[in-house]
């Protein structure tokens, strides 16, 4: 049944309703404004008084206007109340927050940490940091300070949340910087340490090398001293040596002179008796003329010849020893002229013989002319003598190079030569390689040659083969 209610009734109801609404709004406002501490509500069971949570206004204001977020949590982490600042932090209306588990706003990575916090809070105040997702997805870091709260007989938790994201960032940055700095310090320290080590080791090296140098210096000084001592010793030894050489030379000179004097006086003393033998043989010969048999005359002649030979020997020996004692005057000698002079003497001996002479221009030499003349007489004379069986005889004289700054001269012939096996004997005194029957001679000549050339500081030697001629070499200083 639809009853049309009288308009008056409706209007009255409306006004009544408006009044009640206004009352309700007022109450709500009052409640909102914190002017109401409690409500008396007539309910079915009679009047019920509800005390509003957070009744005390100043405290409510405090809670709502502080900068930190504040929460009331159940023991298992459900948000029973969240203040405006907290809602602002999460950028959500408080209505969406209240009744949810705090865990749902915390980053999954921090769930374990949150769980620990909640657990710890049950036994005492605790605090910790958790990352929380805001409505637009950003992650903020909240520091939660949790403690117990007893409210209306229930054990709850209250939490204060401080947004430390910035701080944390700064902290992190600072930490980074600090770490960086530390790292850099460490690096620099390490560098310094390293360079210090390096410097130290360099210093050590420097010291070592200094020591080494000092040691080297000391060694050097020692060496130098030793060297000087050694040099001094050498000098002294040299002096002693020179002295001994001079002494020995003097001794040798004296011995030589004695020998020469001896050979001179001996041969000189031999001449007198020899002369007598000769003379008496001669006188005997004249005395016994006619009275001697053929044999007798032969014996006489033999005695005479023998004594003649002896005479020649003695004369040669005398000449030889005189050669050693005579004074020598060296001068520039024209060898060509000297050779010609010498050859001149052989003219009688070479008359009637076929001798081919080959003597090119010879260099001027530094020597005693008389002595050198004897050398030439002997060598050329020998060549003439020992080529007697040859026709033609070839006698050659010339230069054969130099030795020790002296010119090598030679006299070569194609005569009877000699056995090279005995070549070393050639220049010995009284050494002959042929019998007197074959070729006359006393064997003094070459000894004289050697003596003379040696006194000139030169050398003599010979080459030859039996029946293939001989070459005699001697060296002399050339004259400028």
């Amino acid at each position, binding site marked *: 049944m639809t009853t049309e209610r009288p308009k008056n009734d409706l209007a009255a109801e409306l006004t009544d309703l408006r009044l009640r609404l206004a009352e309700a709004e007022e109450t709500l406002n009052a409640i909102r404004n914190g002017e109401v501490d409690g409500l008396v509500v007539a309910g079915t069971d009679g009047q019920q008084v509800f005390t509003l949570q957070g009744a005390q206004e100043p405290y409510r204001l405090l809670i709502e206007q502080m900068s930190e977020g504040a929460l009331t949590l159940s023991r298992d982490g459900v948000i029973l109340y969240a203040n405006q600042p907290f809602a602002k932090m999460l950028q959500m209306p408080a209505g969406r927050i209240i009744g949810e588990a705090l865990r749902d706003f915390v980053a999954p990575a921090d769930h374990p940490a949150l769980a620990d916090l909640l657990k710890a809070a049950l036994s005492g105040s605790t605090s910790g940091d958790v990352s929380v997702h805001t409505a637009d997805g950003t992650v903020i870091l909240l520091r939660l300070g949790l403690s117990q709260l007893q409210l209306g007989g229930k054990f709850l938790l209250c939490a204060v949340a401080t947004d430390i994201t910035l701080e944390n960032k700064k902290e992190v940055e600072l930490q980074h910087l600090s770490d960086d700095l530390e790292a850099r310090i460490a690096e620099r320290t390490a560098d310094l340490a390293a360079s210090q080590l390096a410097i130290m080791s360099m210093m050590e090296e420097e010291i070592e090398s200094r020591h080494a140098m000092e040691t080297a210096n000391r060694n050097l000084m020692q060496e130098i001293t030793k060297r000087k001592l050694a040099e001094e010793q050498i000098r002294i030894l040299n002096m002693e040596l020179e002295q001994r050489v001079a002494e020995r030379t003097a001794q040798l000179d004296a011995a030589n002179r004695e020998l020469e004097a001896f050979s001179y006086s001996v041969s000189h003393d031999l001449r007198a008796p020899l002369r*007598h033998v000769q003379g008496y043989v001669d006188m005997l010969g004249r005395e016994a003329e006619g009275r001697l048999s053929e044999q007798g005359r032969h014996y006489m002649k033999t005695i005479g010849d023998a004594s003649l030979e002896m005479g020649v020997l003695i004369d040669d020996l005398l000449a030889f020893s005189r050669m050693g004692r005579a004074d020598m005057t060296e001068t520039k000698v024209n060898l060509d002229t000297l050779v010609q002079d010498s050859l001149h003497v052989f003219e009688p001996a070479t008359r009637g013989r076929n001798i081919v002479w080959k003597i090119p221009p010879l260099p001027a030499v530094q020597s005693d002319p008389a002595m050198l003349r004897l050398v030439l007489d002997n060598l050329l004379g020998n060549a003439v003598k020992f080529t007697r069986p040859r026709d033609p005889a070839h006698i050659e004289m010339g230069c054969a190079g130099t030795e020790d700054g002296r010119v090598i001269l030679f006299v070569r012939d194609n005569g009877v030569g000699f056995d090279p096996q005995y070549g070393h004997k050639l220049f010995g005194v009284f050494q002959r390689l042929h019998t007197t029957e074959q070729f006359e001679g006393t064997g003094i000549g070459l000894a004289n040659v050697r003596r003379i050339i040696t006194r000139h500081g030169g050398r003599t030697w010979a080459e030859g083969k039996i029946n293939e001629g001989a070459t005699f070499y001697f060296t002399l200083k050339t004259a400028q």
Partner: protein
Amino acid sequence: MNIELKSILMVDDSPRDVELTLNALAQSNLANEVVIVGDGADALNYLYRRGSFAARPVGNPAVVLLDLKMPLVNGVEVLRLIKSDPQLKMIPVVVMTSSREESDLVTSYELGVNAYIVKPVNFQEFVTAVKLLGSFWAVVNEPPPGSVRAKGKVKNEE
């Protein structure tokens, strides 16, 4: 004792050399012209006419044949004494010796020897030398005044 004046004074200590020289001189017929003394001292005695020769007639020999190597007063000494005495120094002295020593030569000539003969070993050569010597000094050469010519004649100022 009648000592003849002879033109040759020979001073030599070796009898053999004396014999040989005399033999050589004989071949030149000069053997009789020789007075022989065996050492330097006697040589001086003869020349100064003293000692065993005090009684010899006055007159110098035409030549003195002087050997060098002699005992007592040796030849060089005799030569020196002869050549430093004004009375004797003009007497020709011929050294006849076996020595060809340079020093003897030099000394002899420095002292004024007139000739220096080295006695050759070869007797024939010796004979030749003596012949030449003898004929030169005792015959060819004009001896100084106061000396005896060969054949025993004293040369006076003529």
